[in-house]
């Protein structure tokens, strides 16, 4: 990325992020989001995360790859199970990355 694009990217991200944190705090009483907006906001994190995860495990190279030689899929499913059982983020990351590296090494050795 060239430096102008980088500047615009960071400035734009900073601006919109502050816009999600500041106005409701600063103008309390004058600016109250309606209840249905607050209800919808609750679904933002799981929807965004899922929309990020699914393509990166199912289509890591841009093509649908539901097969055992797709290390992203194998390690991703394993990580989901670990996250579900342990609810421990750090453990999920460490074991998930280890599974990814090992599975790739195993595929490379075959």
């Amino acid at each position, binding site marked *: *990325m060239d430096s102008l*694009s*980088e500047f615009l*990217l*960071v400035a*734009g*991200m*900073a601006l*919109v*992020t*502050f816009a*999600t*944190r*500041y106005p*409701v*705090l*600063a103008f*309390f009483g004058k600016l109250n*989001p309606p209840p249905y907006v*607050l*209800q*919808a*906001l*609750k*679904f*933002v*994190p*799981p*929807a*965004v*995360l*899922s*929309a*990020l*995860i*699914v*393509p*990166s*495990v199912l*289509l890591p*190279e*841009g093509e*649908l790859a539901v097969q055992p030689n797709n290390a*992203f899929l194998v*390690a*991703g499913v394993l990580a*989901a199970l670990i*996250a*579900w059982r342990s*609810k*421990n*983020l*750090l453990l*999920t*990351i460490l074991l*998930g*990355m280890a599974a*990814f*590296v090992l599975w*790739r090494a195993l595929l490379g050795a075959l």
Partner: protein
Amino acid sequence: MHPSNWTRRAEFVRGMRAIVPLVIGAAPFGIIFGAVAVSGGVVAEGETAHQLSPLAVQSMSLFVYAGASQFIAAELVRNAAAVLVVIFTTLIVNLRHTLYSASLAPYLHGFPQRWLAPLAFGLTDEVFVVSIARYQQADSSPYKHWYQAGAAVLMYSGWQFFTLIGILAGRSIPPEQVARLGLSFAATVTFIGMLIPMLQSRALLISAAAAGAASVLFYGLPNRLGLLAAALVGIAAGVLAERAKARVPHG
């Protein structure tokens, strides 16, 4: 809490102390973010890896200061998304902060802007969790905002430090080693670990499932707009699922 503990300094220090475990928990993400963002990771053969300069990566931590969206932005940049798409995606991902602001607003009503602006800027998931707990305590300490300030200052400093460590680590790893070390999977596995514990109700599960299915359908959309479109489908599905449940109380 005893009124003798209601000093600005005591609240500030107590806020710092309360957030220490969460700062430690954020360390790996700050480091992984810095490393992934500068290394560019691997892309399909014949394509160039789009990466960010160390200055841009550190600036993101300094001025945007929202971990999940920084991760996502780095991932989108790597996949050559347009700047406007990354900014708009950042807005959507960070909309949850509005929930935090709305929850804290009653406690900070009437405070001057020199307090509200920095407290708003530093309002991350971790700072919110720690400070709302303090505001909700029954004692009438007049300096609870100093507690939030203490938590915010430590979290902010930590995030800058971890980003820097990550940048230095990422710079020293040659690109062809990135896949072997599993860095290209780091962002995804972090998102998985964040998502799974969130799925506490049927509506949340439906929301995530719908977004995931839609993300595959919309994968081919130009400029990586598929993420936004899929997220909107997921949010709509969650709202509808919750409404359907409200109508059938025993369903």
